């Protein structure tokens, strides 16, 4: 059948482009953040790239890997931004490259993984998630967490152990194999 629902060409209808956007937005922002170091600015740049991709969807023919194509464009756009320090007069034609995307395997692993970890954390049971985040994102010690939440230090230790175990097995493919796999986590809406 001619129809292709995969990721080798830009979805030409809004609904599917929207899904593609939602799946890759956070990762793209992290990639831009690599050099821009300002999240608001990174988000603006990423939105620019998605807009440009949408407008060029007809002329972007079959590329091997649409995610990579997108991420490379985001990286280039962010680099251009840093070099030029302003967004006017940016030409979008040179950020979309036709070079084979196999070269970029592994380039974006860190960002992809980070977003997947974030989603996996979201799926933890509420109390576990709360405790884990205090240690993981806020850098509190177990003692500080125990004090803050009025629970025993042992509970903190147990819950954090549970969290790491859960994350480790959820992200098994990404962590162990270390390849740039396209995870099919639930599409958040």
């Amino acid at each position, binding site marked *: *059948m001619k*129809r292709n629902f995969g990721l080798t060409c830009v979805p*030409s209808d809004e609904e599917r482009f929207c899904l593609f*956007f939602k799946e890759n937005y956070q990762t793209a922002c992290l990639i831009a953040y690599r050099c821009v170091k300002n999240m608001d600015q990174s988000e603006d740049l990423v939105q620019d790239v998605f807009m440009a991709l949408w407008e060029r969807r*007809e002329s972007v023919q079959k590329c091997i890997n649409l995610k990579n194509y997108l991420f490379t464009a985001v990286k280039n756009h962010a680099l251009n931004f840093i070099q030029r320090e302003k967004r006017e007069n940016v030409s979008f034609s040179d950020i979309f490259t036709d070079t084979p995307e196999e070269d970029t395997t592994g380039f974006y692993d860190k*960002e992809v993984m980070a977003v997947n970890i974030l989603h996996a954390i979201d799926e933890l049971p509420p109390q576990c998630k709360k405790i884990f985040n205090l240690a993981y*994102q806020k850098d509190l010690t177990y003692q500080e967490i125990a004090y803050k939440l009025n629970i025993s*230090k042992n509970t903190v230790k147990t819950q*954090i152990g549970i969290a790491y175990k859960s994350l480790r097995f959820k*992200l098994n493919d990404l962590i162990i194999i270390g390849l740039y796999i396209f995870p099919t986590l639930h599409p958040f809406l």
Partner: protein
Amino acid sequence: MNNNEQNKFERLASLFHHEKSDGKKTQNAQQESGITEDSDFSAVKKIYEAKDLVCQASKVTPPGKAWNKVHSRIRRRHPLRNIVYWQYAAAVIAIILTIGLFVGKSVRQYFSDPEQFISIVSPLGEIKNLTLTDGTDVWLNSGSILKFSNRFGKTNRHVIVDGEALFKVVKDNKNPFTVSLGNSKVIVHGTTFNVKGYSTDDKCEVVLIEGSVEYVNSLKKIFIKPGERITEIKASGYLVVDRVDPENYTSWKCGKVYFDNQTLLDLVSLLEKWYDVDFEFANNDVKLYTFTGVINREHTLDYTLQIIEMTNKVKFVKKGEKMLITN
């Protein structure tokens, strides 16, 4: 066993979070606790080392919200830009007209240039979505064509449809939006409606979701209200109005179509357009078998055919380039 595993992760976590058993943070805990570096160790290590990046990720605007921003930017863009990218022919026409201007043709001559029609084609297996210069949104189903004059604009809001399209029309009472469907016309008064009139079908229909439309053919003019469907039998010009659930008639734009006791003939003509495949009926009886259910475009053709075969009424057999349907 499970308890041991549990303790293992607790110890690994404690290690990376610099927790000694006496509660103080320490640097050389690894050597002290004698933990072996296996795959679980490297897994936890990788997760721990990603925490700064994960922290950054949590600061990104939720994608749903970010999409709304991008979506409204796409909508606000000069609608003509959407069209220019759609069809090479349209781009060529636009370029020719522009070059004509620059080459110094007088304005009078420009306006007396022959009217040209722009065709937007949604090939088999695709759905296209575009915005016209008056701000009207159009979704074109598979195997459909939308035509309009190069003079389409404020005063000329006339389009021609061969196929199926869903419109969200911008209200302008002084310049009503009109759609030609075969030999009939739909006059629109600021609304959302679906038209279906494939030139290969023997009937055409318009379903109104919101607003008000007037259906005009050589014999009659009828107004329909939201929730109503008007069907015209092309051969006789006969018009029938009935009440339907508009959801069922517009869900194609999301890739789902509801069938309520409809014939295999109708079902198959839809599949042919979605998947770009030819079907052949083993005999005429099979054409009239009826089906009720939902078909989802996101599934492959094989999957969809399997679902239909489960009703035990028909079987699909590959016959060369076509699909043969038998009972």
